[in-house]
């Protein structure tokens, strides 16, 4: 096979204009050119031609489209005359052969580094493992679902400016500019302190802290109008007091250093502890201390030993105790969470947020007619209420927090003053500078002259930065820059700074590899490294490329095996699955609070996919394990609350063991397990509030079956769900797609979308449509006549036709790896590889290795 591609397809240009044979012309004129002629050109397609210039990319794209439309039976539209089977076959055979003969393997456009690749490359090149891109660094566009394709990786002025800003920042770390010292003083009162969720509240002129949690937005406050400009020692005075403490034990106020620009979702522990202060009295105490703060930081305050916690498990215990002690408090909570107790208890916890929730609760507490008849520990309402607390439903905890703000115990901050720097100190960046310089230059400056040092630095650094050997001329062209700068009276440091900046905006650095026809050793090393690690080639790969060893098939394979990810959290696993399956969207979706799908569940849902993918790859499991595996990864709690199944008991419901992700065994042939129906995927294909069968159907066609339908006409509105619940999604869809012109795509889309209706917008198993729209009917018929009752039938069908799935994944992998969508000829090679791999046991790891050895991978 490979020989054929090499000789037939890599030999440069192929004869151009070819006549369309008569028997094909007949089919085209009978069935196609009524609409697709020069005059009407429906869909922008003109097929009224007598010959084809195959050397033109446009004609190849055009005819590949025609072939796809025929393969999928999309054309002619159902209301028009249909060709006979022979006629269709004649057209398709001619197209297949012509395309194969005329489409060369290869064609990736020059690819600049994607956002993540760029970040990783800087990390690796300079030894800055925690380097992050600045706020507002432009995002990459997605093309065919991936952010690393040649076509999609556009270079824009905004991006180039961002590159040069990053280049300045990196150069500043190695050769910082001199700074003028300015002494500053700040005063901050309670009103200058940040309130986020229920972390703090201002009462009686003091800021009160009341709760513990790992996330700063649920436990901490900070003066948001202070930002240190110079790293140094600062004198800080904090005025604080206790408010209604329960014991003699002092309240511990932690003071930490917070980056002003850090996320509110950050963990407390990521900020450096400056001081622990003991607060013992209800009268204001003032504590003064000195601490180092670095550029860009402010202070962060937390009450370390608060009683109230946001941890669901612990909070449930506290509330259980409380309710036992105080039935009236219990009754008020019951009334707040279940205001309309009918036959089934519907929780309204989602609207009980923060102070609002607390006010609701207080109103009920004050109500003399408060219903006390269920305020026992045995009642159903109490049990359900405690589950709400236990599930980590943040709203109720946020409301409960206000009890403490009002009644204590709470820790009060009355204000603070800060001044400095008393002396300038080296921030962490300063301290690391020598190591960084050594890493970059590969040698100490020692007694070398400025010029010698700069030259030697470039000889060592440029090949690493540009990921290939660099000739003397290039080294010299960079050296001259620094030299000129020095001659103009600039300092040694400024010259070095300039060199670093220049390297970092050179296209040799920014573009992965400017590749000629066939990949050379260095380009192959680069492609392999970014594919498997999202980073530049390491020393071993560079060395092999220098010694021209990577061309040997067994060396390439060995290297691929060495770099192949084995763990769920390695960059390739996460980056590839998130883009292929669309699960990168999960953090953006913000599910409707009514669905009670807390961040814990979102994380579990994503972990399930990534752990499973990593295992199938690492253990070389068969491709069918993507569809119908005998294992998955989830917690007992997740299985119970999302998939509605038990997966072997570990600990009591809600316990740490119950919440922990673990590998679980599954029965093959069931509804749980595999990509179809995984919560994370079901969530990514909905919008957080309701399901959209069309989106899911398109998703399955595109990402599981590899036959994406053409985009919908632009004038069709998105389906907006009927909030009254009078029509169910199935009926709405049927009405939506009555038009015959819609039917040719929708008969493929709808069955595979509807069959997933048993999964709600977060992938939770359900039997009924919401709002009383009835029992879900998920049945349908695939275009090949297979009838589906539910998702299990679809999984069975896919296992029987697994090569179609393997071809789809392979195409996605190759798209991600090579930066181009495989063309007709490349798909042929991929299909051969899938077939051969199937015969050898169908292992996923074997498949990836075979793809890396393919011509498609090894050609530009």
């Amino acid at each position: 096979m490979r020989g054929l591609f090499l000789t037939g397809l890599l030999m440069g240009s192929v004869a151009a204009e070819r006549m369309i044979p008569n028997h094909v012309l007949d089919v085209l004129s009978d069935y196609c050119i009524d609409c697709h002629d020069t005059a009407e050109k429906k869909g922008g397609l003109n097929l009224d031609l007598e010959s084809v210039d195959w050397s033109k990319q446009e004609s190849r794209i055009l005819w590949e489209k025609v072939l796809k439309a025929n393969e999928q039976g999309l054309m002619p539209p159902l209301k028009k005359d249909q060709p006979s089977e022979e006629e269709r076959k004649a057209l398709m055979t001619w197209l297949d052969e012509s395309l194969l003969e005329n489409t060369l393997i290869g064609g990736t456009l020059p690819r600049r580094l994607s956002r993540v690749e760029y970040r990783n490359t800087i990390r690796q090149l300079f030894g800055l493992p925690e380097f992050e891109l600045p706020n507002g660094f432009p995002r990459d566009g997605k093309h065919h679902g991936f952010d690393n394709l040649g076509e999609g990786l556009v270079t824009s002025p905004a991006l180039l400016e961002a590159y040069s800003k990053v280049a300045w920042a990196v150069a500043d770390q190695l050769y910082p500019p001199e700074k003028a010292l300015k002494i500053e003083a700040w005063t901050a009162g309670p009103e200058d302190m940040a309130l986020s969720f229920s972390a703090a509240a201002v009462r009686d002129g003091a800021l009160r802290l009341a709760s513990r949690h790992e996330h700063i937005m649920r436990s901490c406050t900070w003066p948001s109008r202070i930002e240190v400009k110079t790293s140094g020692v600062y004198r800080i005075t904090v005025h604080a007091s206790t408010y209604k403490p329960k014991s003699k034990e002092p309240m511990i106020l932690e003071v930490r250093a917070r980056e002003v620009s850090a996320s509110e979702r950050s963990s407390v522990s990521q900020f450096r502890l400056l001081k622990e202060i003991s607060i013992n009295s209800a009268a204001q105490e003032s504590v003064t201390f000195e601490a180092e703060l670095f550029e860009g930081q402010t202070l962060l305050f937390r009450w370390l030993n608060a009683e109230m916690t946001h941890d669901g498990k612990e909070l449930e215990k506290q509330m259980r105790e409380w309710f036992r002690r105080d039935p009236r408090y219990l009754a008020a909570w019951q009334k707040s969470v279940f205001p309309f107790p009918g036959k089934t208890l519907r929780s309204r916890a989602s609207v009980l947020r923060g102070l609002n929730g607390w006010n609701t609760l207080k109103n009920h507490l004050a109500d003399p007619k408060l219903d006390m008849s269920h305020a026992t520990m045995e009642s159903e309402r109490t049990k359900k209420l405690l589950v709400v607390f236990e599930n980590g439903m943040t709203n109720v905890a946020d409301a409960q927090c206000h009890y403490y703000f009002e009644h204590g115990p709470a820790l009060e901050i009355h204000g603070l003053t800060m001044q400095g720097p008393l002396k300038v100190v080296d921030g962490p960046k300063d301290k690391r500078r020598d190591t960084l310089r050594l890493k970059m230059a590969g040698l100490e400056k020692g007694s070398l002259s400025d010029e010698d040092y700069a030259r030697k630095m470039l000889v060592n650094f440029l090949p690493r930065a540009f990921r290939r050997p660099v000739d003397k001329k290039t080294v010299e062209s960079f050296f001259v820059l620094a030299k000129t700068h020095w001659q103009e009276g600039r300092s040694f440091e400024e010259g070095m700074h300039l060199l670093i900046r220049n390297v970092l905006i050179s296209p040799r650095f920014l573009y992965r590899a400017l590749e000629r026809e066939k990949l050379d050793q260095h380009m192959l090393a680069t492609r392999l490294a970014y594919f498997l690690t999202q980073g530049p080639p390491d020393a071993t790969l560079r060395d092999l490329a220098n010694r021209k060893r990577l061309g040997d098939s067994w060396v390439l394979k060995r290297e691929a095996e060495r770099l192949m990810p084995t763990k769920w959290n390695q960059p390739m696993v996460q980056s590839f699955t998130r883009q292929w399956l669309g699960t990168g969207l999960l953090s953006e979706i913000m599910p409707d609070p009514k669905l009670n799908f807390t961040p814990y569940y979102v994380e579990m849902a994503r972990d399930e996919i990534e752990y499973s993918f990593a295992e199938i790859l690492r253990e070389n499991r068969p491709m069918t394990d993507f569809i119908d595996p005998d294992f998955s990864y989830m917690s007992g709690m997740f299985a119970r609350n999302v998939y509605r199944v038990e997966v072997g008991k570990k600990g009591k419901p809600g316990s740490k063991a119950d919440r922990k992700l673990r590998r679980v065994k599954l029965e093959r042939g069931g509804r749980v397990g595999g990509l179809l129906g995984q919560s994370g995927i079901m969530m990514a294909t909905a919008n957080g509030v309701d399901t959209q069968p069309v989106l899911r159907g398109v998703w399955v066609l595109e990402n599981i079956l590899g036959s994406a339908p053409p985009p919908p006409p632009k004038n069709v509105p998105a389906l907006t769900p009927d909030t009254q619940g009078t029509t169910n999604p199935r009926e709405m869809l049927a009405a939506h797609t009555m038009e015959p012109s819609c039917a040719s795509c929708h008969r493929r889309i709808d069955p595979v979308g509807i069959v997933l209706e048993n999964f709600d917008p977060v992938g939770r198993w359900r039997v009924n449509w919401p709002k009383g729209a009835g029992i879900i009917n998920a049945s349908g018929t695939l275009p090949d006549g297979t009838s589906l009752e539910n998702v299990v039938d679809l999984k069975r069908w896919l296992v029987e036709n697994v090569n179609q799935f393997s071809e789809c994944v392979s195409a996605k992998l190759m798209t991600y790896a090579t930066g181009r969508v495989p063309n007709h000829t490349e798909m042929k090679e991929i299909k051969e590889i899938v077939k051969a791999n199937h015969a050898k046991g169908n292992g996923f790891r074997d498949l990836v290795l075979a793809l890396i050895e393919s011509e498609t991978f090894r050609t530009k």
Partner: protein
Amino acid sequence: MIALPSLESFGSTATPVDGPKNFVVIGSYLGLHQNAFYPKTIGKNYEMPDTLKPLAEHQHEFTVFSGLDHRAANGHAAWSNFLCGNSPKTYSLDQMVADKIGQKSRFASIQLTAGSGEANKPMCFTRQGVPLPMIQRPSVFYKQLFVSKEDRRRTEYVLRSGKSALDSVVKDAKRLQQSLPQGDRDKLDEYFESLRAVEKRMDRQLETINEVVPEPDYKLPSYDPITPNLQIESETIMYDLMALALESGSTRVLSLFLDGLGQVFSIDGRALGSGYHGLSHHGNDPAMIRDLVAIESAHTHCLSGFLSQLKEKKNAQDKSLLDDTVVLMGTGMGDASRHSNRNLPTLVAGGGFSHEGHVAIDQKDKDSPLLGDLYITLQQKLGMEVESFSNATRNMNDLFS
């Protein structure tokens, strides 16, 4: 108010044009609660709904539109349909305008955000669909507009050494480009074009350094209000600077993104009942809606201050800067409580339009106009010859001109 010498000063164009020449757009991430934003009646003399009350003094200078949208997908992920139309994350309205009318000013367009924290949710996209970063720090925006004396030498060094760096990079890259096949060279041209654009911008900045733009007597606070709880403060400052930017002719196209996270605001001394995002999921709870509307009214209050400033600033022909500026406020989410992107609350102020009060579009009518149709009208008012926007191909000139 201080007078600013201008590069291409407002009102000093050689050939006076009748239409407006600036475009400002404000986008609210968590939507704008419809019941408090849409007037109950149509036409001019409606009773001010709560969110619009802060804008009462400008009632005759703006029009509210209900019932418009792009028929785009639902959910937060499709939010950027606001300026991109039916296909989110593509060429956005403000950039179309910037590409046509922004080119001659010092900055073709400037993108700003208030209350974003760490988040990164782009609103504006270039022709190629590249999302544009937003300035979060007022001090950075200020420095772009007005280079101070102390900073001038440093800035000049940064620019000049940056420029000489570019020269050498270009030389090296050209050498590299010659060895590549044609398709690749074309692709690499993106890089050169970007370089040239950056270089041009540096040139323009270098020129203005020598022209000595004095700092206005505007006083920035000593800190940047960048954490989400200081959003309203940041918004106020951004609007002040935006007015100065338009007045000095530094740019003609400005965008301001209003993010929404879990920050708890205190408004008029009262801490609100929940974080901003929490309130947006109000589930029709009246107390939550009241607090949500309080935040949104704070947004319109800031906008009102901005409109007043634009109204006060007049050119030699006594035309106000507001008449010279099309101001669009809107969102990509029609109802944040349901994550629905239908029926997007939209407001247009200034721009020399004859303002119509409340224009209500009945979505049940199959031929009802799209939000894109309004965008066509806005562009035409700005002197652009356009006939389509995303999925829209008409305009709304007969309802609004």
